C-alpha cells in the first residue's frame, strides 16, 4: 500500500513542470513552423505604415521599417532555438569527452596542463570571452556557435572530469576491468554514459544561458546579421523607440525570448525534481 502512495507522489513530482515546459516549447516550434508560411506578410516585406500599433491587421504592430512584428517574431524561432541548440550540443559532446578522458587519465602532466587551461577559460565571464572571440573571427551564426563552443566546452569538461574520477572508481567499472573488457568498451559502455548523465543535466540549464547569449550578441550588433529576423536583433532595432512610446517592436520579441527560456527552465526544473525523487528512494 505504501509503495502505491509513493508511486503516485513520484509521478506528480516535477511532471507538471515538464509538461508545461514541453507544451510551451512545442507551441513555439509549431507557431514558428506555421505562421511564417500561412501569413500574408513576409518577414522582410513592408506590411503597413512604419510603427503602426498592434491592430487586427498587424497583431503585434509593425517595426520602424513597417515590417510585421508578428511574422518576424515567429520567423526568428528557428534561428534562435537552432543556434542555441547547436551552441549547447557541441560543447556538451566535446567537453564530456575531454573531461572524461582527463578524469580517467593517469598522465599527471597532461592532466594539470589541460586542467589549467580549463580553469583559465572558466575564469572568463562567458559573454566577454564570446565577444572577444567575435572581434577576431567576425560576426555571424557560424562565429557565434564557434565562439560559444570554444568557451563552453571547458565548463562541461570540468563537470565531466570530476564525475569521471568518481565513476572510474565505482564497483561496476572495476568489475568490468577485472573481467578483462577492452578499455574502449569500458569507456563507452560504462564510464561515458554515467558521466554524461551529469553533463546532460547541466546542458539543460546551460541552454538558457546560451539562448540568452545568442540574443544578447545580436542585441549588441555582434551576432546574427540583419535583415534576418532574430529576437535580440529586433530588440536592438526597437530599443531607442521604447522610451518614446513605441513599445511593441521591443516587447514582443522579448516575450518570445523569455517564453523559450522559461519553457526550458520548467523542463529542467521538472527533470531535476524527478531525478532527486528517484535518488531519494
Amino acid at each position, binding site marked *: 500500500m505504501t509503495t502505491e502512495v509513493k508511486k503516485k507522489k513520484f509521478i506528480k513530482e516535477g511532471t507538471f513542470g515538464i509538461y508545461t515546459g514541453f507544451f510551451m516549447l512545442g507551441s513555439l516550434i509549431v507557431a514558428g513552423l506555421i505562421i511564417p508560411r500561412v501569413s500574408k506578410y513576409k518577414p522582410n516585406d513592408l506590411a503597413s505604415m512604419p510603427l503602426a500599433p498592434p491592430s487586427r491587421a498587424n497583431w503585434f504592430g509593425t517595426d520602424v521599417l513597417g515590417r510585421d512584428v508578428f511574422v518576424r517574431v515567429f520567423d526568428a524561432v528557428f534561428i534562435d532555438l537552432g543556434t542555441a541548440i547547436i551552441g549547447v550540443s557541441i560543447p556538451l559532446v566535446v567537453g564530456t569527452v575531454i573531461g572524461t578522458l582527463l578524469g580517467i587519465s593517469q598522465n599527471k602532466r597532461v592532466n594539470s596542463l589541460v586542467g589549467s587551461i580549463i580553469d583559465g577559460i572558466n575564469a572568463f565571464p562567458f559573454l566577454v570571452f564570446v565577444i572577444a572571440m567575435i572581434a577576431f573571427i567576425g560576426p555571424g551564426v557560424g562565429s557565434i556557435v564557434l565562439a560559444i563552443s570554444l568557451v563552453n566546452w571547458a*565548463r562541461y569538461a570540468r563537470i565531466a572530469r570530476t564525475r569521471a574520477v568518481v565513476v572510474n572508481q565505482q564497483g561496476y567499472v572495476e568489475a568490468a576491468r577485472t573481467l578483462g573488457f577492452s578499455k574502449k568498451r569500458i569507456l563507452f559502455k560504462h564510464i561515458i554514459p554515467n558521466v554524461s548523465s551529469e553533463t546532460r543535466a547541466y546542458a539543460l540549464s546551460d541552454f538558457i544561458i546560451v539562448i540568452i547569449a545568442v540574443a544578447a550578441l545580436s542585441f549588441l550588433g555582434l551576432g546574427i546579421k540583419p535583415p534576418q529576423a532574430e529576437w535580440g536583433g529586433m530588440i536592438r532595432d526597437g530599443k531607442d523607440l521604447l522610451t518614446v512610446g513605441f513599445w511593441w517592436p521591443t516587447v514582443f520579441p522579448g516575450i518570445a525570448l523569455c517564453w523559450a527560456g522559461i519553457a526550458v527552465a520548467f523542463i*529542467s526544473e521538472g527533470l531535476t525534481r524527478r531525478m532527486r525523487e528517484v535518488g531519494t528512494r
Partner: protein
Amino acid sequence: MSESQKTAASQDVKMEVEKNRNRAALRRTFLGRVIRSVVVAFWVMVIAFSLIRLSPGDPVRMALGADVTEEAVEEFRTQLGLDKGVLTQFWDYFSGILRGDLGYSYFSGRDVTEIVGTHLPVTLMIIGLSIGFAAIISIPLALYVAMSKSNTVNYLFRALTSISLAVPGFFLALMGLLVFGVYFNIAPAAGYEGAFPANLKYLWLPALANCGSLVPVLARVLHSSIVDTLDEEFVETGVIRGVRKGKFYWSYLLRPSLAPTVVLLSYMVGVMIGGTVIMETIFSLPGIGRELITAVDGRDYPVVQSIAMIFGLIVVFFSFVGDLTGYLLDRRVTLS
C-alpha cells in the same frame, strides 16, 4: 620542580605549539589560495594572448577589409607585433603587463592602461552594486521561503525563480527603463556623472537589472542550503539554548548556510559580470564593457585583448574573495 608544576609547564608548551600550528594552518590555506589565484590569473593572461593568434581565419586581413595591398597587411601585422616568434611575443606581452603596459589602442593611439584605468572604476561599481542588490534581495527571500511551511510559498518560489532565470538581462533592463525611466521618471535613460554618491543615480537601475541573473541562482542555492542547515542538530541546540532571535538567524542559520553558498557562486558571478557589458551599452555608461564593444566594432585588437583579460582577472579576484568569505564564515570550508 614538583610533578604538578611539570605537567602544567608541559601543558603550556603544548598549548603554545597548538596555537602556532593553528596559525600556521591558517596561513598555509590562505597562501595556497593566493597561489592558486595567481596561477589561474596567469592562464587568463595566456588565453587572452592566444585568442587572436589561434583564431581561425586571419583577423589581420579581416580588420583591414578585402581591398588592401599585401604590404599594408604585413605592415599592420608588424604593428601588432604578430610577425615575431610566438615566445618573443608572449614575453613582450607578459613583461608589459607586469610593467603596467598593455600596449596602444590601434585607433585612438591611446595607452590601453590609461583607457582601462579611466573606465574600470565604473564597471567595478556596477559589479559591486549588483552583488549588493543580489544579496539584499536573495538573503531575506531565501530565509523566508526556507522558514515557511506553506507549500504554496515553496511552489511559487520555485516557479518564479525558474521564470526569472530565463529573462535576459538586457530585456529586463529595457523594461526597467520603460517603467522607472519613462513611466515613473525616476531613472535617467542614459548619461553619467562622475563622483561617488552622485553617480548612484545613474547606476542603480543598471545594477538592479544586472543582478537579475544572480538573484534566482543565489536565492535557490541559499534556500536549499538553509533547508539543509535547519535539519542539523545544532540548530535545535540553539533553540534549546535560548539564543536571541537576531543572533540565532545569523549564527545558526545564515552563517553556516552562506558559507557553502558563496563558494559555489563564482560561476554565476562570472555570468553577471559579463552582463555589465550589456548594461553599460544600454545605459551608455563609461565602463570597460562599453569600451570593449567599441573596440570590437573597430577591430581594435590590443584593446579587446586587454579588456577581455581584465574581465578574467576581475572574476579571478571575485572568486578569491568568495572563497575567503566562505572560509571566514565557516572554517570548515576548504580553500583548495
